[in-house]
């Protein structure tokens, strides 16, 4: 009796132990994030995946306090190209930026590393769209349009990469493991070929009725970028053809007045072919680009007037300021040298770059709606002029028309055309080339152009040395940046550029 009782009880206890376990107890279902395996199924997924690419371009996905906060256009795109030149000096007490400004950087420079990171993160996000969206059942035109957007952005990234680093790893599909992503550098020619294929695909697949403009590429943006890519590549005829296509489209024209270009009300309009859109109005947190924070002078804000949170980190060299004709509309539009308060008091100071500041719309600067202009009509005109000069071993009539259109606009002071900057004519090949370089300098201060213009024309060392820019000591090796050391230590297939 007792024995049986014991057995029963023991059996009961064991049953309890075993009962309380169930097979799906360990299944994981994320609640605050989407499982990628359950995504990329619908049209809205396709759009969301495409939209994501733009965040990589603008603010990136790093946390606000992380070093890598900000996408390429947040600041590095336009800061680096001008401090790596005769245009600007760096005043922030950060040795990373100082080293760039003085051409004393090495492969450990964190700004270069972060630039590389942003390039490839954006490429990865684009590759996901390029690979996965075609598998989604949806309207074919829309589907191709989304893939075309991704291929346009991918081409931009590879174009940046090939200009800065020369040969770069070329990944044209979504890698799903790290071994696949650990590849050697592809020759520049192959990278250019991929860029051109992407742009051609994009140009013929971007539709007109879906997601038009406002920071998204259009067929003409593809043509414009192609002209720029061919120019860098030395394919001058192709460059001229593409530029001509943009000119002949009559979709774009120059503002009469230079100051109109960066007015907020003129965003994505008239002269702007492609701009990376930022919005202080719509965004929360620190997502607007850093134009005003970095470029406007500090200490002006008083009693609610003047730019807030401004640091004046990148300042123009005297050489840049002095290279403008004092009456050139672009000088006063580009630089800010004084500020007047509502009580009439005026403070004067050495020049800072104020061209992006729409004082009427955003009197306090800082959190801005300003977009980062990537491609505008004046650029196309000057590309056209430069390409024609190269093709023919000297300027053609059309080349003069193109460059003189830009010069003419600079004479307009808001009410009248001043007798300055006369139309160019009768120049030799070399003189015209120099004229284009000079015109580009005056036109595109802090627009991400100067370093590439100097490198393309082979004048980096000459011009920076001639600018008497502090301790800057450029060398021929600086025509390319070093491959980041971090990347090389993780990928032994990566070679280093000469001199680093």
């Amino acid at each position, binding site marked *: 009796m007792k024995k049986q009782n014991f057995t029963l*009880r*023991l059996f009961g*206890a*064991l049953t*309890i*132990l075993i009962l*309380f*376990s169930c097979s799906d*107890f360990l299944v*994981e279902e*994320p609640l*605050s*994030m989407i*499982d*990628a*395996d359950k*995504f990329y199924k619908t049209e809205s997924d396709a759009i969301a*995946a495409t939209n*994501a690419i*733009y*965040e990589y371009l*603008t603010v990136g*996905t790093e946390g606000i*306090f*992380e*070093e890598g906060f900000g996408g390429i256009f947040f600041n590095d795109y336009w800061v680096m190209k001008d401090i790596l030149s005769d245009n600007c000096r760096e005043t922030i*007490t*950060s*040795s*990373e930026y*100082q*080293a760039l400004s*003085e051409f004393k950087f090495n492969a*450990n420079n964190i700004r270069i590393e972060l630039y590389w*990171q942003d*390039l*490839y993160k954006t490429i*990865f996000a684009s*590759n996901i769209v390029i690979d996965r969206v075609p598998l989604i059942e949806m309207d074919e035109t829309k589907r191709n349009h989304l893939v075309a957007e991704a291929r346009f952005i991918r081409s931009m990234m590879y174009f940046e990469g090939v200009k800065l680093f020369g040969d770069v*790893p070329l990944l044209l599909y979504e*890698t*799903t493991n*790290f071994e696949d*992503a*650990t590849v050697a550098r592809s020759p520049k020619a192959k990278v250019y070929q991929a860029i051109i294929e992407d742009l051609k695909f994009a140009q013929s697949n971007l539709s007109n009725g879906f997601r038009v403009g*406002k*920071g*998204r590429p259009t067929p003409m943006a593809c043509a414009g970028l192609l002209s720029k890519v061919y120019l860098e590549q030395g394919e001058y005829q192709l460059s001229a053809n593409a530029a001509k296509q943009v000119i002949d489209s009559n979709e774009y024209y120059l503002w009469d007045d230079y100051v109109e270009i960066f007015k907020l009300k003129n965003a994505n309009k008239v002269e702007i072919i492609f701009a990376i859109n930022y919005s202080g*109005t*719509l*965004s*929360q*947190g620190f*997502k607007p680009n850093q134009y005003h924070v970095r470029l406007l002078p500090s200490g002006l*804000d008083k009693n609610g007037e003047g730019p*807030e949170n401004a*640091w004046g980190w990148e300042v123009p060299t005297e050489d840049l300021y002095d290279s403008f004709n004092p009456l050139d509309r672009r000088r006063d539009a580009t630089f800010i040298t004084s500020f007047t308060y509502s009580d009439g008091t005026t403070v004067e100071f050495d020049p800072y770059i104020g061209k992006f500041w729409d004082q009427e719309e955003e009197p306090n600067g800082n959190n801005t709606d300003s977009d980062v202009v990537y491609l505008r009509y004046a650029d196309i005109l000057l590309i056209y002029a430069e390409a024609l000069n190269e093709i023919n071993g000297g300027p053609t009539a059309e080349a003069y028309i193109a460059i003189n259109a830009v010069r003419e606009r600079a004479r307009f002071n808001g009410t009248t055309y001043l007798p300055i900057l006369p139309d160019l004519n009768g120049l030799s090949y070399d003189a015209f080339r120099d004229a284009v370089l000079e015109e580009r300098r005056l036109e595109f201060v802090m627009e991400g152009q100067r370093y590439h213009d100097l490198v393309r024309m082979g004048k980096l060392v000459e011009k920076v040395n001639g600018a008497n820019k502090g301790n800057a000591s450029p060398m021929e090796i600086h025509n390319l940046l070093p491959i980041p050391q971090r*990347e090389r230590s*993780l990928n*032994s297939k990566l070679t280093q550029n000469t001199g680093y």
Partner: protein
Amino acid sequence: MRNLFILILLSCTSYLTAQTVITGTVVDKYGPLPGASVVAKSSNLGTITDFNGEFTLKVNNEDTIIVSFLGFLTQEIITTGKTTFEIMLQEDVNQLDELVVIGYGSVRKKDVTGSISSIDSERMLATVVSSVDQGIQGKAPGVVVNFGSGQPGSKSTVRIRGISSITGTLEPLYVVDGVPLITPTNVGAVSGPSMNALESINPRDVESVEVLKDASATAIYGTRGANGVILITTKRGSDGKPTVNIDYSGSMQFLRKEIPMLNAMQLAQLGNEAADNAGVDRRTIYASPINLGTGTNWQQEIFRNAPMHNVQLSLRGGNEKTKYSLSGNYFTQDGIIISSNYQKANFRINLDQEVSDQVKIGTSINLNRNVLNGVVTDAESGIPSSITSWALEFNPGLPVFDENGEYTYSNNTSNPPVGNPVSDAYETDQTSISSRILGNIFLRWNIIEGLNFKTSIAGDSYFNTEKSFIPNNVYRGQEKGQAAIADSNGYSWIWENTLTYNKNFGDHSLNTVIGQSMQVMRNEFLLVAASDFDDNRLGFDAIQAGAEKTLMANGVSRRQLQSYLGRVNYGYNNKYLLTLSARIDGSSVFGDGNKYGVFPSLAAAWKIHEENFLSESETISEMKIRLGIGRVGNEGIPPYSSLGLLETTEAYFGENEIGKGSGPHSSKNTNLKWETTDQIDLGFDVNFLDRYTFTTDIYVKKTSDLLLNAPVPYTSGYKDALQNIGKLENKGVEFSINANILNKTVVWDVNFNMAFNRNKITKLAKQDGITAEPLLGVNGWTVVEEGQPIGNFYGFQTDGIIQLGENIAEIPYFVDYSPQPGDRKYVDTSNDGILNEDDKVLLGNANPDFSFGFGTSLSYKNWDLSMFLQGVYGNEVANFNKFSLESFDGLKNNSAVALERWTPTNPTNKYPRANADPRRSNTFSDTHVEDGSYMKLRDITLAYNFNNSKFKNSALSNAKIFASGKNLFVLTNYTGYDPEVNRFGEDPLRFGVDYGSYPTTKIFTIGFNVTF
């Protein structure tokens, strides 16, 4: 409850009957026995023997007294006709077999087969402690407890037998009365060190702490056993009259030392010299050094002496069927940095009820609330910011208040500058409030003799709020004001069912357990932030007043564990012991193919003293050899780590269209699994004369499948990813000695423990190792790499100073800078004439060669004197405070060593010249890595116990007053505030750093303790 009141009343009332007074002495074989209970059987009233073992008691004329004491056989003595007694108590051999708590059960201390250190409450509370981790520091060999920050309520790091993970948690598993404690993490709305999960347990409620160190002891905890397990057992009620204990201590805390800094004039001179040497313009702020005078001592402005109070109250008692224990604690502490303070309250109730002869139920409820008003120090992420760093770097030439009586807004020496630390301390608000409820209920059913079934359900809930507000008149507020609020809460429930069977069959003894466990842990957070506050008055309590909503985020995560466990302890002839255990752990966080793991262990012990050749020995009372081997895991990675996740993105198309998106966040890894640690331990215990015990253990711990959030090429689209790559090992020796040197009128106990641990990464899939994030612009200052221990510091080796007349062309240089006389020379280890990454050398390691603790207590009559020393030896500290304060560039204040800088007239070889060139500011070298060895006088306490005879007629049974000092003496060569500093202490990739931590303190305390 009414019964309780009656019990209390009874104990306070004197009875009057026909009585005689008897006196006597209770002794054991060593001498008088204080604290023995003497009870008159008739009245059930009694007393406790005093310090001399004496007692006085009123009894009826024909009465029996019951004399009892824990660990001794109870005696009953008939009093008839006698008034004085000499009572000799005999040791109860069975009771003396102290029990040691092990996972899911307990064993006799003599039968322990694994490596377990026990710390009883008496030893833990010998020092003045406000948390359990303070109480165990230095008291168990191989358990290194480090308090890197002096911020009240902040967390320590506890490392048992070295570091056995790079990504997973390094903290041991804490199990309180059988319930695993979860560790909430800060969301980050306030900047400061993490709160301490152990703050929710009042150390005075703790009966004992057992540290399970080797795998044979921890394998029963499976995937959570790799860092060791700390079992905390709380005090429960016992049979007998209620005892009330009241305890108070009051303390004063002091900054241990100030760092000598330049004064205003000296900084200006340095700044001018630095500008001249760099060939740049002198700065106007330094125009007239002589007129600046000494200026402000910013350290004195932010540090203060601060009080601390601790009040405890407990009531314990019960009868045969019901036992209770109630306790409460209130603790308040001002920090030594102005405007920081901390309060905590704990309440605990433990109840046990016998329902029938076979069924017993019990419950524990622990409530806790902490409030911390902090200041910015030890910020764990983002821009290293800290009030202590600002106070050190701030220009002494600036006053706290300007001529208008407003706070000086910001420093004027650097760009970007930092804010006034005094205004930041007073004007910004940083509050962390945390509430926690721990509760469990269990039922034990004695099915038949020896066979018990236990089911237990436990819950642990926490509710944390972090709030910060930076008003618009403080520099960090960037003129607009910023507020952030984070709410986080979580719970864990666990249901465990075990069946135990204990039985002796002749020479065989068996102690077995099998069980099953299910646990769910869930937590969520909500974080909101806003800026642009016009009005500073409401701050974070009206966050909607911020014109710009800067952040809104939340998240939920959940993890589940499902486990089966079993253990057999088998003994033969009381000489040979064998333990077999295993746990099967299933964890939701791992990849689909790797949810379950098996964690077995085996241990054997031989009790040599039970053998014939030793059993008669007078000198050797115990001798045992133990050998254990086992496998444990570490699952300490976040949920969903094995999945490919997308995150929400936002883009803007024009000013009217928001493009929400979903972009890649993490890459999928279905192979992800726990880290596995295999450990072997050989131990030896010996006890001479029942007074001198010696324990030593030697172990090897090998961890494989290390989880690593390893950097991956950016070309993959990711920065890093969690992978099972790498192996590491820890091996070491530890020993402890406990000696009762004198035990007559003077009682003198000494204990000493020491542990050596060596750590090495034996395999790492990343050839160049893992480089920690840059700190202050320094890259590669610490690297984890194959063949090396974790915690190595790397940098340049200095080679004196370039003197006038040296041939500059022969001196190795950095490509971006041409050295001049007065600059530091560095060793060009690669001999290519150029200084670069290849020339970096090993500068030190953050792990100590050994750690030790030494405690001694001396009692004479009513006096107790105890002392406790603790230390580590052979570790280095990467002193980034020093790196910053020896910049010699005039961009921030520097420590007073700048006065010894090189000048043409002071051609020293120790310190370089002043130089404002920024490119020379980030060379991390051997001058910044310092010996962090120390020995601290953790505690010295003098106590006076009042003679019990004085309370004969009162309810008071015990009273004690004491005075104590903490950290009064520190032996170290370290130049910073405290060598124990450990900024980023929780991060195995970058621990051992000094930068802007909240300094630790020295403390004087007085207090009393009374028992009724």
